[in-house]
């Protein structure tokens, strides 16, 4: 029996056939780029360049706005044209640096060769500094600054690094392809993080629908002491941090706590590849692999896209917007966000672009709740979505808090499984925002 998390979960069709095993292709450079200054959780980055300034690829253009924030480096060489507000891929207004792309001139300190640097000669502090300097954030979707996770709060110690190679979102294949093409670099990145955290154990969790990645990573990991590959049973949302920890080491992170509470640090394979590049190649985080996919797309595939590239250019590379498109999703279909247009620039958060045909874009007509309890069975956090949605409808905020609304990870299992097509998560999300606000106000008042 393969391991998996113990509560809830659903089995959506994975639909990875469109882009699976497509080699990672570099996206051509655009003529103009817009680099948003909020590409992570935490404070916005502060621009450190001026209008008219010339920059090279890899140069720092915006500095982290606090401890929980991340540096942003120039993904292109060229001239800064203005620092203004833009609308990012999610439709949010935010500050951004606009630039004209001229040539492709890199900083000399960056090692651009294809050779793998295997020598490990950094101490923990140097590794963490490099990760922080390179602006690395969790590329699995949350975009939490990685260096913060590497510095456990006082009194807590890390015991095991859990590497997220699950990619449980349907359609997405970028992490899978990254493991196949850059497995060795990922193993080196894991060793770097193990050193930074001063731990001796790492577990790479990969779902059973990627047998070649499991085989490849197992072969590579067998040469290194302390790294184990764990094949996991196919089940969504296994890539959720708490679920993955439960699946890999059978420990459940308590409500409201961080993974470090049970001695775990979780990082995505793409993040770890970025750590390798930052430490061993001196290359900051300026691009990521994105899956561009969909049933009707001409050339679905996995593309290496520098941040700030207009998404239209990425789409053009994949064969253009299909005729029947109804919805474009940034990320996967379970947790990704629908975009109102695709003229926006790519950023650290967008792990994929999914084109859904119009027929699959609309929700079905809702009917009465039949109390089947399938949402309870599906919820990986052990919540009662039907009840929470009713409480949100009736503005019963205290009751929602009492029923652990803040534990919800917004994975969408409840709504996915509901035979009455009720918008359960819409209500839960609304209630969660409201209850979160009430809790914060109460904490502020009690200080």
């Amino acid at each position, binding site marked *: 029996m393969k391991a998996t998390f113990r509560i809830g979960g659903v089995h959506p069709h994975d639909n990875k056939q469109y882009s699976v095993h497509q080699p990672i292709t570099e996206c051509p450079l655009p003529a103009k780029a817009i680099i948003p200054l909020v590409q992570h959780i935490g404070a916005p980055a502060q621009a450190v360049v001026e209008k008219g300034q010339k920059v090279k690829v890899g140069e720092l253009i915006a500095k982290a706005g606090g401890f929980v924030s991340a540096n942003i480096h120039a993904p292109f060489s060229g001239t800064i044209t203005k620092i203004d507000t833009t609308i990012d891929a999610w439709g949010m207004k935010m500050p951004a640096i606009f630039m004209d792309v001229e040539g492709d001139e890199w900083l000399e300190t960056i090692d651009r060769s294809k050779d793998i640097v295997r020598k490990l000669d950094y101490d923990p502090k140097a590794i963490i500094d490099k990760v922080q300097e390179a602006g690395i954030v969790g590329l699995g979707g949350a975009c939490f600054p990685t260096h913060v996770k590497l510095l456990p709060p006082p009194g807590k110690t890390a015991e095991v690094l859990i590497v997220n190679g699950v990619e449980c979102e349907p359609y997405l294949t970028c992490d899978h392809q990254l493991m196949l093409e850059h497995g060795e670099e990922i193993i080196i990145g894991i060793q770097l993080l193990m050193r930074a955290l001063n731990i001796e154990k790492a577990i790479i969790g990969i779902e059973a629908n990627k047998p070649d990645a499991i085989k490849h990573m197992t072969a590579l990991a067998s040469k290194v002491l302390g790294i184990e590959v764990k094949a996991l049973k196919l089940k969504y949302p296994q890539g959720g941090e708490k679920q993955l920890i439960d699946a890999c080491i059978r420990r*459940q992170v308590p409500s409201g706590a961080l993974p470090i509470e049970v001695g775990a640090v979780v990082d995505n394979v793409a993040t770890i590849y970025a750590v390798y590049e930052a430490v061993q190649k001196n290359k900051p985080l300026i691009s990521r692999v994105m899956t561009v996919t969909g049933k009707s797309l001409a050339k679905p595939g996995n593309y290496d896209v520098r941040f700030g590239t207009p998404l239209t250019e990425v789409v053009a590379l994949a064969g253009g917007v299909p005729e029947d498109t109804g919805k474009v999703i940034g990320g996967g279909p*379970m947790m990704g966000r629908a975009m109102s247009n695709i003229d926006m620039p790519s950023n650290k958060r967008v792990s994929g672009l999914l084109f859904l045909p119009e027929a699959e874009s609309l929700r079905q007509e809702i009917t009465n709740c039949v109390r089947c309890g399938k949402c309870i069975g599906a919820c990986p*956090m052990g919540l009662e979505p039907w009840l929470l949605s009713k409480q949100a409808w009736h503005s019963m905020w205290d009751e929602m808090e009492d029923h652990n609304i803040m534990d919800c990870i917004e994975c969408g299992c409840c709504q996915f499984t509901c035979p009455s097509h009720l918008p359960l998560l819409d209500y839960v999300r609304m209630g969660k925002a409201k209850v979160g606000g009430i809790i914060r106000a109460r904490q502020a008042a009690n200080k």
Partner: protein
Amino acid sequence: MKQLIVSPAPHFHSGDSVRKNMLLVIIALLPAYAVSVWQFGWGAFITTAISVAACVLFEWLIAKYILKQKSTIGDLSAVLTGLLLAFNLPSNLPWWIVIIGALVAIGVAKMSFGGLGQNIFNPALVGRVFLLISFPAQMTTWPVPQGFATSYVDAATGATPLAAMKVALTGSDSMMSAVPEMWDILIGKMGGSLGEVSALLLLAGGIFLIATRVITWHIPVSIMATVALFAAVTGWAGMLPESVCTGEYVMLSLCTGGMMLGAWFMATDYVTSPMSNWGKIIFGVGIGVIVMVIRTWGAYPEGMSFAILIMNACAPLLNLIRPKRFGEKKKA
């Protein structure tokens, strides 16, 4: 470019629907229904056709003329209610009694609460129990299974195995000879409500429902485990007549009367059963205990309908049981 559709995640659905679940339950009932027609002939067919047609008609009429809302007959729940009601009736029940049952089931038990998903009690069972109390003679006259030789109006009638057992339990041991052989019970060659006779195929239908994820194991398994345990304890306590061994009594308790139909198809009704796993287990244990208490000491030979209806009333209370939260520690 044309306008894109925007909505919050998730953008993906399992494809499950109320109609699909209802259809799967109907499919799961068909093999057992085929046995009913084979055993009881035209009566089984006529009663079922009247019941289903009446239920659908009443739901449509009430939605259109009284509630003035969109018709919900497309979700097939009225078809299923009609089918289940018929399964709980003797195959020679006069047609007008069947129609009264359908009116009570749909009109009183379902639509007066607001339609699908709102009712407290299982509609088909409310219809059946109403008929049982109002027409006790017709509702407890069981045709002897003779295939298509069984006529709809003037069928030869006999006792059900449970009725025979009841008499045997209360002293006259000789009545045990009226209880059919185990194999006849399994294939449905016994008196009883038209749909409850084939224990084997009802069990197969229930397993089909678990395999297709329409229901979970919690309710049926907890009911049957409780019934088996109760029957075994009755045997060990020396309450059985000498001619019946404990094992036989356990099997008879599980396979006769409305046990299989009730445990797999009636108690598992989404709307009227609890939603969490522990709630479902307590619900099932409650049904098991009540049905055996009625069978052993009650005035009726069978108590499945009453047991389910009583526990239906407890479902809202059982819904207060919270599922185990992720990361929840056991209280010290």
